[in-house]
């Protein structure tokens, strides 16, 4: 069962979450899905969460999330139906839906076609597909990216029960378009 301020079986934690759906629907949070986003927990379309969402495994959001999302060592996918109004911290972030807030990723951020993103993007690698709608800023200066990500990690370590270990300094090589040079090599 998904409970307030408690980690569920998969390590996904939520504080002050609104229980806007039945137990059956919340069960989908623990279900695993295959496909883009891989083997990830899912926040289903009918679920609304207001508060801080933290976890230690990959997550796909198809519902509404407001607050803060922290998946420091995991991948976050915001699906086509997903609407996130939050600052987001993750190892990698892929957006197909809508976000309003700043996105921080230790490795990469991908904004896919038809996604709608308002906020700032900070990651060593960023890709924005044609057809995506984006309003905000993208930091492409490797030194500034590293500084911003480092500051974020430090802030979270000094804050509440963060599970962050900090972003890896040398992101994995990726076959997709690399708009930003990897940190430390430019």
């Amino acid at each position: 069962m998904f409970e307030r301020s408690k980690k569920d079986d998969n390590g996904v934690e939520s504080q002050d979450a609104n229980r806007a759906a039945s137990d059956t629907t919340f069960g989908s949070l623990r279900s695993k899905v295959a496909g883009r986003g891989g083997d990830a927990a899912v926040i289903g379309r009918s679920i609304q969460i207001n508060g801080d969402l933290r976890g230690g495994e990959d997550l796909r959001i198809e519902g509404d999330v407001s607050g803060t999302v922290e998946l420091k060592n995991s991948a976050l996918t915001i699906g086509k139906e997903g609407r996130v109004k939050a600052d987001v911290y993750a190892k990698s972030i892929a957006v197909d839906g809508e976000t309003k807030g700043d996105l921080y990723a230790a490795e990469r951020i991908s904004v896919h076609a038809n996604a709608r993103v308002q906020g700032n993007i900070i990651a060593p690698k960023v890709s924005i597909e044609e057809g995506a709608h984006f309003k905000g800023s993208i930091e492409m200066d490797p030194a500034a990216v590293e500084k911003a990500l480092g500051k974020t990690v430090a802030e979270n370590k000094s804050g509440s029960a963060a599970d962050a270990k900090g972003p890896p300094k040398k992101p994995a090589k990726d076959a997709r378009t690399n708009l930003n040079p990897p940190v430390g090599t430019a």
Partner: protein
Amino acid sequence: MPPDSPAAIHAPLFQDLVAGLDATRRHVILDLGAASTAMLALLGRSRCHVEIADLAHFGGIDNLNRAEPGPALAEAAESVLPNRMTGDAIDFVFCWDLPNYLTLDAVSGLMGAIRRRARPGALAHALIFYADRDMKEHPGRFVPTADGELIDRSAPGPTLAAPRYSPEDLGKSMGGFMIDRARLLSNGMQEFLFRLGS
């Protein structure tokens, strides 16, 4: 090139501007158009901080044109620009063809807001309909080629009368950005480079 591909536009002032990006220096760039992979890849060659307003898709054009000159327009102009992550002054502004879709008051309000974020000497690039009496109903989606030419990837559609702003009109309405250079392009558009006075 596929037969239906739009022709690349040779825009020498845009090319000069991009060629002038110093890879060793940090540049702050404001793009009033939509994000494009090609543009970001081009800017990614240097240490850029890119701010993207995407006026056409986030309601910026309507908000600016509807606002009454004065405090309401100033507020609208601030709201259509992205929230800032840094206090670093803007070095370059890419306006594309968006000024054609704004009233001169709206252009003035917008550029005034940009001036407050820009450093003295900042450059603004714009494409103004000049020879043709009509323009597409919606702004173009210009993406650069690897060698700095421009391709308008917007879909064909209805047209409307182009305002065909004169250099004098623009000179008075660019919020302190003065005409630095201008070129007439092969597609009938006038390419402008404006420079912010100190």
